[in-house]
């Protein structure tokens, strides 16, 4: 018997190349298997649902999720209230707005741009430290540490604490990507401990920043008192946790997918080496071609919604398969071609609507820096393994390791 499409999406065997399944899926833009989630795979339908106020991100509105394999087990987040990613307006709007004040325009138009120098230094430092050019694991040695370090600097985690912070972040990240062979109780305990420790660490940091604010984001969030009132400590903690997880789980994959794609398209790699300005359109195309968030689960309908002749009932859970919408031939010409010169590129890689990626400007800049520096400095890089081993996660999809070698490292 053939496996259901839903299971094929989740099946690890298809992780390295899920695109043929998405192609299958698009034949039924609103796909539904007995009692499971409604899976939306075509560009225009996904985009319209992302802007549809009858769609909720708040878990409290979900009906029965028994048959949604990506539903969060109850109580998973119980240690902290949900971050704004899992809230609807007006709570979502208030928290996102407050978080945005120290991060982006109009109040902080230069925050991200002001990090250019720092990003450059972190990237250079990591590449300098690579060691044996004959066997590099790009994930461990570069794509992972880079965004975590950036988040530390952004939040204002002191340098001397960065190492501890990295450890907790790694453990939490691993819990998002469970290894089916590992003992689930052990794993649960490990991530619970890490969450606790990280929470306590951040709470201490927040206290300290309330007394001695700096110009980092945590200080500004801890001392904010605009029209929206102050953030409570619990809100601050869940926001910080959200920034930490969302801010690096995605960038790791974007950078790794990026390098993998470049190594599979040596002509583009060569062009990037010669002209780093290519990084800007290249990262955009990458977000279309290999988006780090493949699908958005955990959305639900507040009313019966009719879409492409199907009535999605109230309380149903939805999966919006962004990566499939990005390769919808109804929307993009020759969608399976990686083409950094593509001009018409309104992709879904960063979502759309009110939950569209909060950290987008930073993620873009990080990836542009990372890829152009890797292209410039690695001499004659090549893949040692293609496809590389992937992580378990079907939602935040990316290689677990990317083993490459090169002839040397330019200075």
């Amino acid at each position: 018997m053939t496996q259901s499409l839903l299971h094929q999406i989740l099946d690890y065997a298809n992780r390295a190349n899920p695109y043929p399944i998405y192609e299958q899926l698009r034949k039924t833009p609103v796909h539904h298997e007995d009692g499971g989630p409604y899976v939306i795979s075509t560009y225009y339908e996904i985009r319209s649902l992302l802007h549809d106020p009858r769609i909720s991100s708040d878990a409290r509105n979900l009906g029965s999720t028994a048959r949604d394999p990506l539903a969060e087990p109850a109580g998973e987040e119980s240690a902290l209230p949900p971050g704004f990613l899992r809230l609807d307006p007006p709570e979502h709007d208030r928290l996102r707005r407050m978080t945005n004040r120290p991060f982006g325009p109009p109040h902080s138009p230069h925050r991200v741009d002001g990090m250019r120098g720092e990003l450059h230094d972190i990237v250079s430092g990591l590449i300098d430290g690579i060691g044996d050019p004959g066997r590099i694991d790009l994930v461990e040695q570069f794509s992972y540490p880079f965004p975590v370090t950036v988040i530390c600097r952004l939040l204002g985690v002191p340098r001397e604490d960065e190492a501890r912070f990295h450890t907790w972040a790694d453990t939490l990240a691993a819990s998002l990507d469970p290894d089916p062979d590992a003992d689930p109780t052990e794993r649960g305990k490990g991530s619970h401990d890490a969450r606790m420790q990280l929470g306590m660490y951040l709470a201490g940091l927040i206290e300290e920043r309330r007394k001695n604010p700096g110009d980092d984001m945590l200080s500004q969030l801890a001392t904010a008192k605009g029209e929206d009132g102050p953030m409570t400590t619990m809100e601050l903690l869940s926001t910080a946790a959200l920034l930490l997880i969302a801010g690096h789980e995605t960038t790791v994959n974007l950078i790794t997918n990026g390098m993998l794609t470049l190594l599979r398209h040596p002509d583009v790699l060569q062009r990037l080496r010669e002209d780093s300005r290519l990084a800007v359109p290249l990262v955009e195309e990458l977000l279309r071609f290999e988006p780090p968030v493949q699908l958005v689960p955990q959305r639900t309908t507040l009313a019966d919604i009719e879409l492409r002749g199907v009535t999605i009932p109230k309380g149903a859970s939805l999966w919006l398969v962004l990566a499939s919408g990005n390769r919808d031939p109804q929307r993009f010409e020759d969608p399976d071609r990686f083409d950094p010169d593509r001009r018409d590129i309104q992709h879904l890689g960063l979502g759309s609507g009110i939950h569209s990626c909060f950290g987008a400007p930073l993620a873009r800049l990080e990836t542009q820096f990372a890829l152009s520096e890797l292209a410039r400095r690695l001499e004659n890089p090549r893949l040692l393994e293609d496809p590389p081993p992937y992580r378990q996660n079907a939602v935040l999809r990316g290689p677990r390791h990317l083993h490459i070698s090169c002839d040397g490292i330019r200075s």
Partner: protein
Amino acid sequence: MPWTYRPRRCPVLGDGSLERLKREGRIVVVGASLAGLRAAETLRAEGFAGSLTMIGDEPHEPYDRPPLSKQVLLGRAGADRTALPRLRSVDATWRLGVPATGLEMAARLVRLADGDEVPYDRLLIATGVRARPWPRAAEAELDGVLVLRGRDDGAALARRLAAGPKRVLVIGAGFTGSEIASACRERGLPVTVAERGAAPLVGALGGVVGAVAARMQREHGVDLRCGVMVTALEGDASGRVRAAHLSDGSTVETDVVIVSLGATRNTEWLAGSGLGAGPRGIACDAGCRAFDIRGIVTDDIYAAGDVARCPHPLFGYQFLSLEHWGNAVSQARIAAHNMISESTERIPHMEVPAFWSSQFGVNIKSVGVPSLGTEITISQGALDSHRFIGVYGYQGRVIGAVAFDHARWLPFYQELIETTAPFPPAFPTVDRRSDGQRPVDADFPDPSVPTHGPTVTVGGYAPADRRMTFTPAH
């Protein structure tokens, strides 16, 4: 025998004349601003290789107007730094600083103020609108009395604001007037706004939303006076404005007055040409082809942007004229495409109107035509938070929507308008609050008061000699 091109002969479609037009025809664009430039770019992008002439009465290259009442007044951008980005090269003959003064439809030529005549095979009219001046000429001449439409106006006003006037008076609280008031407050300048209607923005958005706009202004320290008219401006001995007198008997001492009383369409130069053009704009079909005054569509004259007035299928084929940036761009592209296409390849202008404004720190955006609505319901957010979506209904369907700091939801409402969804929307949404449950009167000013005089009269007795005559309003 070599073939010679004779432009005057009206070509029959399907005989290759279109190919000839594209290869060596002459296209003239009058109005070298947003719509004109985007049309020119589209013509070239779609393969027009003939001669292109851009006629504009302003001395400047095409520039963008929305920043003039925003960034420029805040001193964040110089008025001379608003040039429109060029999307491609247009390779045109630019006749800047010269107004077009006449059109001869039979001879297919445009007359210019400097006496030149420019012949065309296809003409695009994109002359836009201009600010309606203060009606009393002597008072309008006073130093310190300004309007805001062009780049020079923007530069002059920015200079005045930078000099720190003791008070600014804005007459009229439409979008432009409100944006000016907002910029003044952001610069810490005392500002009075005088509005004849019951609230700012009522004409465009109605009284329910207007009340929010009024509260925003007052919260930001604007001295807002509604339901009053300015009756006279008073100057000092040296001809500088010093005070304004209001219909309620009060006086406002001021040294800068900005007249924001809406716009007048730039169609006077077409008087007597036989084109269906008047104070309400140039009537054209959904493909942007202009009508002549007999209501017959021309095939060689097109109109786009603020000056055009097109029937819109979504709104009962009513002739809409919209002063919206996005409308100018999309009409320009459609007009340009249609000018050089076979009749079966032409496309209609069906875009749902959309408009944005930013004032007092709030991003306002609308889709559809709110002013056609009679009822409103607040489908998301709340009026008193200044963050909400108002949905406008007309005869049981959704006809428009406005978002205050909620723009990301608008594509959904646009779809409701496009699919003529029922009003009031019957479904629950995220962030639906109690004050949005029931539709209320949207509270637009009484539309029965005519705002434009008749423009065409009919004469003659026998059917064969009945004629229509253009009669400009006074």
